[in-house]
């Protein structure tokens, strides 16, 4: 039976029908050749069928216009918009940032490159001239922090300074530090109020501040599935915001709620922006990544106190090098009655509380 339509799109070839005129095993003798040639040539391919369909001029023009429109949309969305030099540069920088490797595996040159790309992106996208550092840990330093719960009066000057220093969005309420108002006679943090707003200090209460404690045995580092967070040699636990996938497993693992997630894109006004930034610290973060206190890594690696310690008017915050036996923090740990939170979990936080 002759087939009217075959599945071969372009070619006209079809399997040769066997002809039984010749004996089996012998070559074709040409008996039914004419008939076979006609059969082969007459079955049109799919493309032929499509192109030879009868069509009015109006319909043909509208079909061609639709096709051209779809092709133009695909082309412009697929490749980068070629409208301006600046936009092309932004696209190129973003591409390079997307394919870069983990910060820990980078050579110094690659780190410098990524920093110049980030600085350039800030300039192009938001007209902000920022200075991003990549300073390494100072050898022979292990940062420690002590908090005097006899002195804290709940002023939250530390929170305000932290928000300013770390470019935190004041509208979303992202704050690394939480100050708890605790009833005298109790150490129960679960019944404490972390969101008070009244004249302080309130009678019958004391104040205890928490933030990321930069644990020596951090559970958040162990659970990160992609290796976006790690403990630096000077004890600070850092996050590479470009590597974080936002799974929030570290937030679940931290027993102190030290790590915060960006539910929204953080926005900071240009005049409030702190332009002294560090790659692992207070540079621009995006929606969907984790962030946390880094003991103001850009300040502390420069020899300065973190913003919270500098802002506290009562001197309740003590910061320094644990390895230095003459530092203030060493004196506090040796001579004062100190405790840490959730000591039984074995996280070895580097944030101690003490009383006068």
């Amino acid at each position, binding site marked *: 039976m002759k087939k009217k339509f075959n599945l071969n799109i372009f070619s006209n070839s079809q399997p040769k029908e066997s002809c039984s005129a010749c004996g089996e095993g012998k070559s074709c003798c040409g008996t039914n050749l004419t008939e076979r040639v006609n059969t082969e040539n007459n079955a049109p391919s799919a493309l032929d069928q499509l192109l030879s369909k009868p069509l009015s001029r109006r319909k043909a023009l509208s079909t061609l216009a639709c096709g051209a429109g779809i092709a133009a949309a695909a082309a412009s969305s697929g490749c980068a918009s070629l409208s301006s030099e600046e936009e092309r540069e932004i696209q190129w920088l973003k591409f390079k940032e997307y394919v870069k490797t983990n910060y820990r595996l980078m050579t110094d040159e690659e780190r410098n490159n990524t920093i110049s790309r980030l600085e350039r992106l800030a300039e192009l996208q938001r007209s902000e001239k920022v200075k991003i550092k990549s300073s390494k840990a*100072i*050898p*022979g*330093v292990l940062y420690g922090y002590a908090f*005097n719960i006899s*002195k804290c*009066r*709940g*002023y*939250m*000057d530390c*929170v*305000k300074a932290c928000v300013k220093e770390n470019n935190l*969005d004041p*509208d*979303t*309420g*992202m*704050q690394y530090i939480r*100050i708890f108002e605790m009833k005298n006679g109790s150490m129960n943090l679960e019944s404490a109020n*972390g969101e*008070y*707003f*009244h*004249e*302080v*200090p309130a009678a019958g209460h004391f104040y205890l501040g928490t933030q990321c404690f930069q644990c*020596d*045995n951090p559970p958040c580092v162990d659970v990160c599935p992609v290796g976006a967070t790690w403990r630096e*040699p000077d004890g600070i636990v850092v996050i590479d915001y470009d590597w974080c996938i936002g799974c929030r497993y570290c937030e679940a693992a931290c027993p102190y709620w030290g790590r*915060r997630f960006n*539910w*929204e894109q953080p926005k900071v006004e240009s005049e409030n922006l702190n332009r002294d930034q560090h790659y692992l610290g207070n540079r621009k973060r995006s929606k969907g990544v984790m962030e946390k206190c880094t003991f103001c890594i850009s300040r*502390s690696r*420069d*020899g*300065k*106190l973190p913003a919270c*310690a500098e802002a*506290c*008017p*009562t*001197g309740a915050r*003590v*910061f*320094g*090098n644990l*390895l*230095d*036996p003459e*530092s*203030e*923090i060493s*004196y*506090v740990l040796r*001579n004062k009655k100190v405790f840490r939170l959730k000591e039984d979990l*074995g996280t*070895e936080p580097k944030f101690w509380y*003490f009383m*006068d």
Partner: protein
Amino acid sequence: MNKLPHQREENTMKIHIAYCCLVALLTLISCDSRESGHSEKRSSEFHKPNPNSLANFIGKTVPVNIYGQSFLIESRLDKIKQFPCSSCHEDSKIDENLEDSQFRRAHWGITATDLNKNHAPETQMSCFSCHDKTDPSNLALENGTFVGLDNSYQTCAKCHSGQVKDWANGAHGKRLSGWDAIRVVRNCTGCHNPHNPRLESRWPSISAGTQGVRK
């Protein structure tokens, strides 16, 4: 066909030794020699604070040496309103028989009554606990020597030696310079008004975050 237990051949000693070696080897490989919390060797070398830096402290300082500690304190002489006393008093003696009201007029509220109400009762403290009758620009110590107003910690230490010892060592008071710098701390009077030392209550400077959602 399975042999009954008493018919199976026992393993030779060689095989037993081989098994033991394998188990020992696996145990050795799997034991983690890293202890948690000591992920790098703590060398005895530590970073000493930079003795040439003040790390963003700007201002006049005065050296202090007390309780075995040497450090700097912020000088406050230029911040005291009515200093030096000789700018108003020719004859710089204090008349201890003056009425309270006369004190108040001259010194904007510093009277003996206020002092006893705000600092310590009259059985423990009077103006002359710290000020000397003959030299009001300086403070008097118990052995008759005088110290400048910047060294007020010496008079505070008469009663508050515990706090001053903590302050000298760093557990009390406010550090003004960075951690990797020369130690500059605030004077006692930098935080505590000596005539009314208790810190006032006030409102917090910021309200706690709403945890994530834009208002």
